[in-house]
């Protein structure tokens, strides 16, 4: 231990003898834990208080996490520089700097990324603060709605970065013709559209995830994404979403809807971890064009991965701008329908929840259609509690609407085991109800088979085809065979030389019953909130 460990504070975490000295002879105060109150300048910082002091009281989590943290020399040097007199900035107090420094270091320490940062070039806390304040000021000037800088000061790490980006973005906007401008910033409407050829959006994602530098994107944007994902270098210790910095006060966000200035039609979805920047958010008139474009694309290409991503970013842009009107309803309805078509129940359920709230504010849309879907959705999830709550909400007028009536009939036919009626209703499902019913049709077929197999000795295949609404006998036979019932199907040649199939259901009863139970045990409730 080559350090002057004369003080008692150095015992806790300082156990690595190979650790090189963490300071040079420059008399810089490097502790964060105990700022001596009487101290005026820092050049006279007492020597008894060098770098290792910080290690004995981890900066990252002063009291609650007294774990061993070993600061690398780079970090300690960074801390040292932060307190050098030459680096001081007027107007930023030592206390603020100390706090900022703590924030910055703990941000990386919590994510075990201290090593992955280039500390020699990382901005000093006082610089971060200066930028932050300047930006906050600019923002208040630009946007009267966004008058609270508190909302910005919560994430020690993202903000300085985003401020830097901000200035860059501004230049971008002022020079739209510049070739360094990414394609989605160009003003020409047509050029903004990436005619997706299937792998294009994959590449977007890959770039964002791996942090590959591509000539297509400017450095700042990549940097921004890299940091948002925190995957850049330390893949394993990425920030889990629940760990991402949260605003201390929701109220600030509440009062400050963002006003977007972005003009691009397409935008990949990223989960926000910091307040959105207006330059990355698209205003409603752009979003409207986006929706039209997306609808067209969906019809033409049916690329769900791309669609879902685009819709999520669209929804996000609406949210951050507090846009809540008939257009919002349209967006959610569109996304819900696409998700239904694709059988993505998780995404569908999110949209459905939102739509319910939106309709409750009397926004125009298709409430009946979506109420019907909700009924069917709860049939699918077998959620009796939610179903009961939903039934409680329905007014007698609702129940006369054809879509809703259909859904309610579906529900009740299944509740009393009337499979005959159920499969007839399956055939006449209005709107996209059949997509939802597809989610549980197999389950109900097994249920009906279990039922039939207790009540009949044997039945003709045609009877099953008709009752369970298979397209034709072959489809029915395939269904039975795929469920391991082939040995119960008898083939006979009738008088006219045509093959006749009979199913010995009685013998298959226990098999169908266990299949039924398995199918119902497996209700997939992902996306359920």
């Amino acid at each position, binding site marked *: 231990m080559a350090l002057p460990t004369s003080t008692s504070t150095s015992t806790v975490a300082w156990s690595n003898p190979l650790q090189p000295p963490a300071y040079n002879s420059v008399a810089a105060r490097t502790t964060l834990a105990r700022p001596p109150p009487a101290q005026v300048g820092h050049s006279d910082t007492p020597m008894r208080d060098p770098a290792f002091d910080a290690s004995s009281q981890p900066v990252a989590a002063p009291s609650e996490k007294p774990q061993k943290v070993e600061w690398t020399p780079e970090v300690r040097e960074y801390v040292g520089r932060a307190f050098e007199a030459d680096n001081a900035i007027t107007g930023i107090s030592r206390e603020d700097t100390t706090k900022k420094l703590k924030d910055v270091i703990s941000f990386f320490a919590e994510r075990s990324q201290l090593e992955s940062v280039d500390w020699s070039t990382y901005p000093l806390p006082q610089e971060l603060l200066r930028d932050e304040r300047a930006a906050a000021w600019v923002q208040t000037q630009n946007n009267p709605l966004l008058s609270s800088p508190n909302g910005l000061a919560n994430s020690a790490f993202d903000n300085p970065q985003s401020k830097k980006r901000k200035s860059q973005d501004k230049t971008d906007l002022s020079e739209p013709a510049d070739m360094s401008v990414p394609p989605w910033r160009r003003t020409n409407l047509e050029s903004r559209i990436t005619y997706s050829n299937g792998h294009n959006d994959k590449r977007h994602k890959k770039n964002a995830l791996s942090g590959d530098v591509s000539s297509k994107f400017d450095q700042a944007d990549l940097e921004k994404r890299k940091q948002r994902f925190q995957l850049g270098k330390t893949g394993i210790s990425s920030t889990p979403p629940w760990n991402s910095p949260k605003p201390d006060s929701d109220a600030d966000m509440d009062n400050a809807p963002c006003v977007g200035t972005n003009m691009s039609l397409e935008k990949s979805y990223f989960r926000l971890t910091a307040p959105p920047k207006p330059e990355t958010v698209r205003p409603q008139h752009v979003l409207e064009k986006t929706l039209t474009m997306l609808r067209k694309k969906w019809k033409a290409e049916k690329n769900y991965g791309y669609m879902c991503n685009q819709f999520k970013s669209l929804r996000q842009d609406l949210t951050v701008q507090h846009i809540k009107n008939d257009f919002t309803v349209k967006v959610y309805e569109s996304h819900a329908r696409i998700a239904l078509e694709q059988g993505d129940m998780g995404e569908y359920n999110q949209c459905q929840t939102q739509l319910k709230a939106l309709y409750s504010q009397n926004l125009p849309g298709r409430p009946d259609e979506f109420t019907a879907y909700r009924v069917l959705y709860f049939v699918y999830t077998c959620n009796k509690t939610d179903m009961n709550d939903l039934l*409680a909400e329905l007014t007698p007028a609702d129940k006369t609407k054809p879509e809703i009536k259909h859904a309610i009939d579906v529900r009740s036919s299944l509740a009393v085991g009337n499979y005959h009626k159920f499969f007839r209703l399956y055939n006449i499902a209005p709107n996209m109800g059949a997509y939802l019913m597809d989610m549980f049709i197999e389950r109900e077929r097994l249920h009906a088979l279990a039922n039939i197999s207790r*009540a*009949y000795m044997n039945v003709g295949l045609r009877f099953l085809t008709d009752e369970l609404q298979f397209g034709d006998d072959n489809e029915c036979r395939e269904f039975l065979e795929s469920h391991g019932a082939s040995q119960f199907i008898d083939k006979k040649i009738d008088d006219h030389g045509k093959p006749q199939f009979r199913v010995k259901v009685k013998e298959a009863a226990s098999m169908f019953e266990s299949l039924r139970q398995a199918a119902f045990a497996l209700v997939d409730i992902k996306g359920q909130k």
Partner: protein
Amino acid sequence: MEGALAGFQQAYYKHDALELASCLKTAPVDRLYDFWRSTNEARVEQNVKNAITYGLGGIERSEVQGWIDVFADFWRASNKIIKADQAQNQGRLSERHSVEVYDAWKDLVSTFQKYIGNGTLPHWIIFTLYFVANDLRKFAIKADTQLAKAKPVTFSAGFSDDVVTTTPKNQKLEEAARVFSRIFALCMSDRNPNLSESRKWAVYCIANLQFKTYFKLKTITLCKNLIKSIEAQADMPPWNLYPKAHRVTYMYYCGVIAFLQEDYNKAETALFNAWAYCYKGSTKNRELILTYLIPCRLITKSEIPSAQILEEFPHLQNLFGDLVSSIKKGDLAGFDKAFAEGEPEFVRRRVFLTLERSRDIALRNLLRKVFRAAGYEDLKEGQTEKDRIRKTRIPLAHFATALRMGSGGGQRVDDEEVECLLANMIYKGLMKGYISREHAMVVLNKKGAFPGTGV
């Protein structure tokens, strides 16, 4: 002030938790105003201190401090209540008032919790706390209603992706629920080996308070955890020694929770227990128990309530009367009508989806009539009237006719649907036999074609 606290002294020396709780009641308003006028914001601590020290002789200083804090908090809460009352009279009651009342009352509850937790206040005060906590529930509900009125929709805050947040509209009640679960933990965790002084005696009444809250919040799943943690606790005082009121309420909730999870056997046992021990005079509670016990019995035992029981409870007669008589008669049209009429109330009580299943019994009764109407096989040689056999091969058409008549001719029932309904009966074990499509016949068992009905 001394006058206001006289009742407290009496209750305290009698060790009467209920009477003590009545000193912390906010009604009647006159009394509350008297208490409120007896001091003011600045002098409340001092005044309460004087009154308490004067009134309570010979008890520990720390306990005196506990009571001072309790009554000072109570005064502050009263202050907010009266402000809200005055605001209401002037027609300018806003959600702020209700929230302030709630917050002040919450402080009172936490003060209780603190002093009970560290053993300063005697163990029996936990029952006083129950009443105070129950009031917190009421204030929370009031505050939530006001908040909902003032702010009907919340915008998404933070970085959520969607426009409308799923933030609950019952913010305060949810907060109160968390307070209650801390009180519950306070009771459960009492390690006092002397059971007569244990806070465990309050476990069930606090649990009941939580149940009530969770039901209101529609987070019924949380009740399960509560029941589990009680069942897992080894050193609980004997169940029989708990007050009946606690036991009956607890059993009722356990029954309803099992009912909602469709565990009808368990529900039946619990509800029947609640029914058996319920105080005969509390009509409303007995009615509530029956509201779930009746549908439960329909499912588990295919049993309809006796006319006598329904007569005793006019409300239940209204609710279930028509339904029950249609089931008995096998009158499907009548059942559907009664079921549709009762739907709003059934849904509200969460028995709708369960009752729906009792249509099977009505159907069974109808089919049974067809079977009986078919009469007997001709007597064979050597057979006597006694052991003659019913006709067990019944044409499908007979059942079809019965069903078409039974459903009132409103909806057409086609032949396949008739088969489907019959298959259901067989599948559910309400009818024994099989369907033969070739012969268009239903072949029923010679013995016990309709189990449990005597034929």
